[in-house]
């Protein structure tokens, strides 16, 4: 079976329970077990080939640009881990079927479990380290889901998060390490990397790569100081613990170190970092385990300790140590999975995992007792169980190692670790099963049904068999895997009896010492509890909480919702960056002579400066500010006139008036005064920033105006061809409707959308909180009785048609003289607005039969259709045509398609302005404003007849 398929099978298995989520525990378990079994079978079929030294590979191109390929390999190491993952996985699937309750979401559980299994298989079968990284992160994610499976437990959530954070951190570090590694090796294929071992060790980037990769491995394998997450992951359902925290996930780090052993090991850096970490972890984990009250916690720390042991062995960097490490991986997996399952049974049946509340279960649960005891004794390293074999090998290796010239440090500490290990192992048996039977178990303990005890029983049988027949049961597997790790061909021979040697003596010391220590457990526990101990969880929580707070502080500092702060940041950024850009470039100085200053513009300038200054000074009086806006608008538009831009002046002044009307409509509901809110200092600072930016922008304007063109501006072409090709004398207009008609098309769309938005906003205001506020609106101004003054009404009736005439005039002449659709639209809409102001909204609206929405739509359509019209001549959008028409009796006049376009502009502007103003003025209706059915307050001609009657 292809390695790729083997890796994919668990994922396929994960899909099934997810799809059959409602079909119950048995179906889910069967599906998963089948998938796992097939994968295991497929893997086992490769045993002969691997034994023969072959490496089975399968590779698919995925992202060759990056060197990320879906490449899989089965060698000895992968085989060993694959068998462990799938084999124990199979047992766990069965165990979980009986462990989980009927009401629990078993389908989800199995999905997570199979995802995890798949991720693990991916790690061990990857032939590409980037692919490996992907699976590596997937184990973090799926274990997050599994640990947090019991969502109602806070410990579950926290444990899951902690595990994800710590292993995630490792994973991220590993990304860095792997990329460096691949970079040095020139490939991300594991085969290539393994071949580039010397180059890697010689590289200056070796140490960073090593450190980053080791962080990944250590976090995953719960090595000191990253060990603290593992006990908290015990909040997971026991099948998860048994699977993840004995045989698989925590071994991923070990796997990685083994995988890269030929590349990374053998250097002093490797030895000191890895072996020391392993040693410390081994002793520390075992020490803590002795004092844990929670059964699973005890096992968790024992796992930490044993992972430390394996890490230390790998750290030694010798072939023998590697062999021992491989062997211990197998042994630890068997007895530890069995122990976890035993703990799960105890928890399940006795209703508690607290050792303090247990004891004396020997007679109540004999089968469980037998299983647990054998597994625990193996963990303690008691012959003839498999744990003894590897403990001996470990102690033997430890005696051969020297640490910074000290030949005994390692083996002394290793013996201490073994001693502590004996202590907690015996404690597991003693404090749980032995001793007097109690009467206060939370539940009524008895042996479970075989579904729960058979899986650990299988493992315990293995524990015994491996112990008795190591070479037959596991030797071959250890041999091929060790060969894969070391790249050499070790031929180890395992035996229970090696004769009396130093290792045996140390072992005996460990067993005796462990027993003594257990006898002293009670006083020792009291002493230890009295000592101050670092609480890893609290530290982690503090760190996490602190980070969250710090993150919140930073983000709130940066974006606290203050407009002034945001804007100051914006203004200063722009100013500084632009100034820097200018000052780092070359500026040759002004090239254009200045225009002389004439008196009129000078007066305009004085007016503008004073008005602007007043604006700042008096802006809190909002009405005055609006009047000043009017003045400034008039002067700006006058400046445009003076500076040869009549079209601009017309547009500016028209827009100006509409804006003022708009602002007045809004100001009706807004406060009429702005209160002083900022402190003097703050205002001073703002003034300073404003002045700086003003200075900068003014200077930029000056430089621009005094500069010359290095290249002929494109507008020269426009001046030259406006009449010839565009058919108009007003070059600005021809640019607007022809050269750059597309811009104008966009521009009217903007205007239309603005009106639609205003309309939509008004609609929503009519229903929300504002509707309530408006319904009880109290105007903050006294209102005069002059609603629709007679004189105003009469005069606007005259003004309206006259303005329409002006509008038509502006529209028609726009192509050749200042004017055009835009100005015309504004003029007409302003004329209409005057009618609204004079005679009132309701009265005028009643007489208006043109929906403004439709005007906008029609305008955009008209402009668009004029543009599209060119397609029928095979020409691009907006290609214009014009011609001169002569009607009999009349002089020649020009017809241009651009006029159709300008008509669209006109309609859109008219519709948009009217819709916007209408929408705004509707708010007053919601504020209880009455509407009139008469056009003027008083019509004496009407009242007279009424009076006469």
């Amino acid at each position, binding site marked *: 079976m292809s390695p790729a398929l083997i890796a994919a099978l668990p994922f396929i298995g994960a899909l099934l329970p997810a799809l059959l989520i409602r079909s119950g525990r048995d179906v889910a378990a069967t599906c998963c077990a089948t998938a796992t079994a097939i994968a295991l079978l497929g893997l086992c079929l490769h045993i002969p080939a691997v034994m023969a030294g072959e490496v089975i590979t399968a590779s698919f191109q995925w992202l060759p640009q990056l060197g990320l390929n879906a490449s899989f390999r089965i060698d000895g190491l992968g085989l060993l881990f694959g068998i462990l993952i799938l084999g124990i996985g199979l047992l766990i699937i069965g165990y979980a079927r009986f462990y989980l309750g009927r009401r629990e979401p078993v389908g989800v559980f199995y999905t997570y479990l199979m995802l995890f299994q798949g991720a693990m298989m991916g790690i061990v079968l990857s032939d590409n380290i980037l692919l490996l990284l992907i699976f590596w992160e997937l184990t973090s994610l799926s274990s997050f889901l599994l640990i947090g499976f019991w969502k109602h437990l806070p410990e579950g959530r926290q444990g899951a998060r902690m595990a994800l954070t710590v292993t995630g951190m490792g994973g991220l570090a590993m990304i860095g390490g792997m990329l460096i590694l691949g970079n040095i090796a020139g490939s991300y294929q594991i085969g290539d990397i393994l071949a580039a071992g010397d180059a890697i060790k010689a590289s200056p980037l070796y140490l960073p790569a090593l450190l980053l990769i080791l962080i990944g491995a250590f976090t995953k394998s719960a090595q000191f100081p990253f060990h603290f997450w593992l006990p908290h992951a015990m909040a997971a359902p026991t099948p998860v613990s048994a699977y993840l925290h004995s045989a698989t996930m925590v071994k991923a780090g070990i796997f990685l170190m083994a995988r890269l052993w030929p590349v990374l090991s053998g250097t002093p850096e490797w030895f000191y970092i890895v072996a020391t970490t392993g040693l410390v972890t081994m002793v520390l984990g075992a020490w803590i385990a002795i004092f844990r009250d929670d059964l699973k916690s005890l096992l968790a720390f024992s796992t930490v300790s044993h992972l430390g042991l394996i890490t230390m062995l790998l750290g030694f960097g010798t072939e023998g140590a590697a062999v021992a490490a491989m062997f211990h991986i197998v042994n630890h997996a068997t007895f530890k999975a069995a122990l976890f399952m035993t703990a799960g049974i105890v928890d399940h049946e006795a209703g508690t995992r607290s050792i303090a509340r247990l004891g004396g279960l020997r007679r109540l649960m004999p089968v469980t007792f037998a299983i647990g005891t054998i597994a625990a004794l193996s963990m303690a390293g008691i012959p003839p169980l498999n744990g003894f074999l590897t403990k001996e090998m470990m102690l033997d290796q430890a005696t051969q190692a020297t640490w910074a010239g000290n030949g005994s440090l390692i083996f002394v500490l290793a013996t201490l670790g073994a001693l502590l290990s004996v202590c907690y192992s015996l404690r597991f048996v003693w404090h749980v099963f032995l001793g007097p039977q109690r009467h206060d178990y939370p539940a009524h303990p008895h042996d479970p049904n075989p579904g729960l005890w058979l899986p650990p029983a299988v493992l315990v049988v293995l524990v015994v068999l491996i112990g008795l027949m190591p070479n037959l049961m596991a030797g071959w597997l250890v041999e091929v895997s060790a060969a894969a790790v070391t790249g050499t061909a070790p031929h180890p021979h395992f035996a229970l009896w090696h004769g009396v040697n130093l290792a045996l003596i140390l072992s005996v010391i460990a067993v005796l010492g462990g027993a003594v220590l257990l006898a002293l457990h009670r006083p020792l526990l009291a002493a230890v509890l009295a000592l101050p101990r670092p609480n890893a969880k609290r530290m982690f929580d503090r760190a996490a909480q602190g980070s969250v707070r710090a993150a919140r502080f930073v983000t709130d500092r940066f974006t606290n919702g203050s407009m002034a702060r945001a804007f100051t940041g914006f203004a200063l950024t722009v100013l500084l960056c632009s100034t820097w850009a200018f000052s780092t470039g070359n500026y040759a100085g002004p090239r254009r002579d200045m225009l002389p200053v004439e008196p009129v513009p000078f007066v305009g300038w004085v007016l503008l400066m004073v008005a602007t200054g007043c604006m700042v000074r008096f802006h809190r009086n909002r009405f005055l500010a609006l009047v000043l806006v009017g003045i400034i608008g008039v002067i700006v538009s006058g400046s445009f006139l003076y500076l040869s831009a009549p079209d601009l002046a017309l547009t500016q002044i028209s827009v100006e008036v509409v804006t003022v009307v708009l602002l007045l409509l809004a100001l009706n509901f807004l406060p009429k005064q702005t209160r002083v809110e900022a402190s003097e200092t703050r205002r001073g600072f703002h003034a300073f920033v404003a002045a700086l930016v003003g200075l900068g922008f003014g200077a930029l304007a000056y430089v621009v105006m005094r500069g010359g063109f290095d290249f002929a501006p494109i507008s020269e072409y426009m001046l030259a061809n406006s009449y010839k090709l565009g058919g108009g004398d007003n070059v600005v207009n021809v640019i607007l409707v022809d050269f750059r008609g597309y811009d104008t098309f966009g521009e009217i769309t903007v205007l239309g959308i603005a009106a639609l938005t205003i309309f939509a906003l008004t609609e929503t205001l009519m229903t929300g909180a504002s509707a309530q506020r408006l319904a009880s609106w109290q105007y903050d101004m*006294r*209102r*005069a*009785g*002059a*609603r629709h*003054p*007679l*004189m*105003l009404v009469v*005069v606007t009736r*005259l*003004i309206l048609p*006259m303005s329409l005439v002006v509008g038509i005039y502006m529209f028609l002449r726009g192509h050749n003289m200042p004017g055009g659709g835009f100005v015309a639209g504004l003029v007409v809409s302003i004329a209409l607005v005057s009618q609204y102001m004079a005679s009132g909204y309701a009265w005028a609206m009643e007489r208006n039969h043109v929906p403004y929405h439709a005007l906008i739509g029609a305008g955009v359509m008209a402009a668009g259709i004029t543009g599209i019209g060119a397609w029928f001549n095979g020409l691009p959008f907006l290609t214009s045509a014009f011609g001169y028409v002569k009607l009999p009796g009349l002089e020649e006049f020009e017809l241009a398609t651009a006029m159709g376009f300008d008509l669209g502009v006109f309609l859109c502007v008219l519709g948009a302005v009217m819709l916007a103003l209408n929408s705004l003025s509707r708010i007053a209706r919601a504020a209880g404003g009455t509407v009139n059915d008469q056009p003027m*307050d*008083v019509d004496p001609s009407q009242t007279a007849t009424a009076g006469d009657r």
Partner: protein
Amino acid sequence: MIGEILVAVLLVLGGFFGLVGSYGLIKLPDPMTRLHAPTKAATLGVGSVLIASLIWFPSQGMGVSWHELLITIFLFLTAPVTGNLIAKANMHLTWRKQDIPPPAKDKDWATFAER
């Protein structure tokens, strides 16, 4: 030449009235009296200037332009309305009802009416 003189006179006249109108705006004592100055003086001020322009172009042989006439008409048409509205505003803001003679018994001016 006559045209030129006429134009010059009109310009001076216009300038003078324009200035007086705006000067009145700052000199006269209260809002109601201030309203008189610009509504009239500025009207004639700008009117003179417009007439000057109307005369100037034909006198320089540049063809007659009637736009100025249009503007003048427009200004004369609208000035009373703005005057009326601003007067109403002044009444509304700064005058008490009892300080203005009522139009008739039991009647009010429109500005003081409840609407």
